[in-house]
């Protein structure tokens, strides 16, 4: 586990300082849309509703962001964001319940304590950032190199990869290392930029 890094001031700083414009909206959406979607799906909402809720949550966060008190030690941005998203989801379920007049269970999100929230939020954040980093760097490598890396992601041993691809094992090591370095680097960059 990494330490929870206090959310650094980059994208957030612009947003919190009322520097909201089209550009930051785009960047904000880019950075948080899928993440919010993942959080909502994590509360057992189906894809269709989750999509709607993602939009409303994004807007909700966008509106409230100036009131987010930016002091990294006190409230982590992602914990704060998680709470907003969770409230939207709870609202949504309550509304649905009165409409259909039937009981859908409110996700246990309501009872989550802060450390639990933190853990869920962090897990999704890692998945989101890592995957985005992966997409970003993919284009920088040849297909062959990426194939080796993908196979190793699937848990294949170097020997197996060598057998499948006909590439020498030593070369596979080098390929894997190269992609891994680039990936880690990109993860750091994205995490810095969007946190």
């Amino acid at each position, binding site marked *: *586990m*990494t*330490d929870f*890094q206090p959310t*650094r*001031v*980059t994208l957030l*700083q*612009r947003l919190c*300082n*009322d*520097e*909201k*414009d*089209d*550009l930051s909206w785009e960047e904000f959406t880019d950075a948080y*849309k*899928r993440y919010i*979607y*993942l959080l909502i799906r994590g509360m057992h909402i189906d*894809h269709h509703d989750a999509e709607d809720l993602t939009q409303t949550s994004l807007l909700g966060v966008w509106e409230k962001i100036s009131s987010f008190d930016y002091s990294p030690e006190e409230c982590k941005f992602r914990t704060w964001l998680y709470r907003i998203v969770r409230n939207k989801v709870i609202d949504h379920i309550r509304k649905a319940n009165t409409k259909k007049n039937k009981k859908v269970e409110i996700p246990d999100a309501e009872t989550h304590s802060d450390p639990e929230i933190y853990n869920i939020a962090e*897990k999704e954040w*890692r*998945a*989101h*950032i*890592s*995957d985005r*980093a*992966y997409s970003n760097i993919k284009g920088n490598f040849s297909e062959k190199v990426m194939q080796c890396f993908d196979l190793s*992601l*699937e848990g294949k041993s170097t020997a197996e990869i060598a057998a499948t691809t006909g590439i020498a094992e030593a070369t596979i090591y080098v390929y894997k290392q190269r992609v*891994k370095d680039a*990936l*880690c*680097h990109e*993860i*750091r*960059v994205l*995490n*810095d*930029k969007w946190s």
Partner: protein
Amino acid sequence: MDDNEYKLNRNVSDFFDEALGLGLAEDIKLSQSDRYLPGKEIARGGMKSIESTVDTLTGREVAKALLIAKDDPEKTERFFHEARICASLEHPNIVPVYDTGFDKNGLPFFTMRLLGGQTLQKKVKNAQSSVADLIDVFVKICDAVSYAHSQGIIHRDLKPDNIQIGGFGEVQVCDWGLACSHGFKTAHSIHESDTKEYILPVTLDGMIKGTPGYLAPEQASSEKQELTAAADIYSLGAILYFILTGKAPLEDCDTLSSIQKTLAGDITPIKVFNPDASHSLTAICNKAMAVEIQDRYQSVEELKNDLLKYQHGFPTSAEEAGAWGALKLLIKRNQRIASLILVFFLVFNSALVLFLLNLSEKEKEARRAEALAIEAADQARDSEQATLEAMSMLAASEKQTRETLENLQKMTDEKKLASQKAAPRFLREGKMSFNHFEHYKALEQLNQAIELHPNIATAHEYKGRVLMSLLRYQEAEISYLRDKSTRNTFLNFVKEIKTQIPDPAKANYQDILTILSLYKKYSFATIQIEELFYSPALDFLSTEQRQDLAVDAAHIFQGFKKSEFNKMLPVISNSMPLVLYKTGLKTFDLRKHRKIKTYMIRGHATEVVMLPKVIIPSPTLEDIDACPNLKQIYISSSTELDFFKNLKVPVLNYKDIPQ
């Protein structure tokens, strides 16, 4: 956007931890086995060999202690015990232990600060220092031992060989190989169930642990006794003996007779070797080396106080100061710290001063006045008490000073950390300044951030952008090259512009047009155009040139057909009012302007501003403040009037605009 935008491959998540922070941990793990370069032996004691080596992880030179009997599990145990005890003691006069473990050859080791100096043993044997200097050293040894005792640790092997003195007089107590906690029983038999072997004073083969001469009688005796701080106090006394005589107590005896003599307290008097030795110091030494524990000092602190008193010329508790002795001391003090004492005596007992003056004139008279002296001394006792207190305060403040110095050292370390922590703040401020188009301020703040933390994310990119809008392309290129986030567009732009405008410091109107065309070609965002238009680098343009530039920019970026500035004004105001900055325009109509920045209104010419429908209050107010000749502001009905309550300029609604 399609549904795929939500898909993700969770297999990659594992790299997150590795990417963040854990990289360093990995490095440390890897380098652990190879952490220390091969060293060379610089010294050797009975137990350990000391090498000097380099810690590749921290880059510093360290001393590495290795066990000589490397295959002995019992000694290995004690070796690590020593490292532990020593590491638990944090004191300026105790050698700091850094690290311990098994090295790559599988040998137990610990590392500590490399001490380049000499041992007290050599220092005294080579007669390099005065007794006064050595007493200073001795006081520091007492400090260290007193601290260790306060932590419940007794050293048990204090001797000049185990005291290191650095080039600048730093004193460090080493070799905690026999150290143990207070109150351990000592015995000869390993079979004693409640004792661990390694605290026994004598090993099975009959070798005494500790060194004859420095060993306390209770350590040398065969009876099972509780070992207490008193044993260290005895050894300290023996060190003092060595300082005064240049010889260890019982130096010339064989082991057996030295034990017998230790037990009997049969130590050659100091006066035999050094007839000039101070009576006070001799008394202190004798008291510390008393055979019976109850006759010794009861604490190192007590011993140290006597030394301090000696250093300041007061009778020590070890001396039986008769009236005449007190008088001698009085005179001695009078010589040593005449002025100080005089002041005290003037204040507290001027009669005694008179008496003292008499005394120095006529010794005989003084003798006759002995009775008077006793009386005076009695009287003086009170004032002396006060002086004494002042003295101990002085000593205490010395200690405080030392502690303050140590704290200062800690603070500089913390300051380094703090400076790293401060970097993000400068970065934040730099970005903020740049957001407000304060180019030079931003540049300075970003430079500061980078100086504090050269790899801080995005600082180089921002610096590049500031430099780019200042037309300092050469430097911008360097910044972009340092930026790790691979913003290739900026870098490519800078490379291309360099070939087209070789000397941007002398840029003319035509050059600015070239720059704008390239901005278009690279599809830079509006924010970049703002950064350029509001840059001080464009201050050379005249009002007319600014108007031309507005027209040209509208053409380049919006594709409007070029015509006269005044004719184009309405479309420019709606689509790209930023280019109206410094065009001498009196009325800004920003009602249809979708962006929320209003920086372009700044200037002396501006008289009327119709603000956009949506504004951000604080920066807009600043922009308004930068228009000294403003006469009128119009706002939309959705804007709160409250924002403007401190303005002198009248604020009206859109609907009040005269047709």
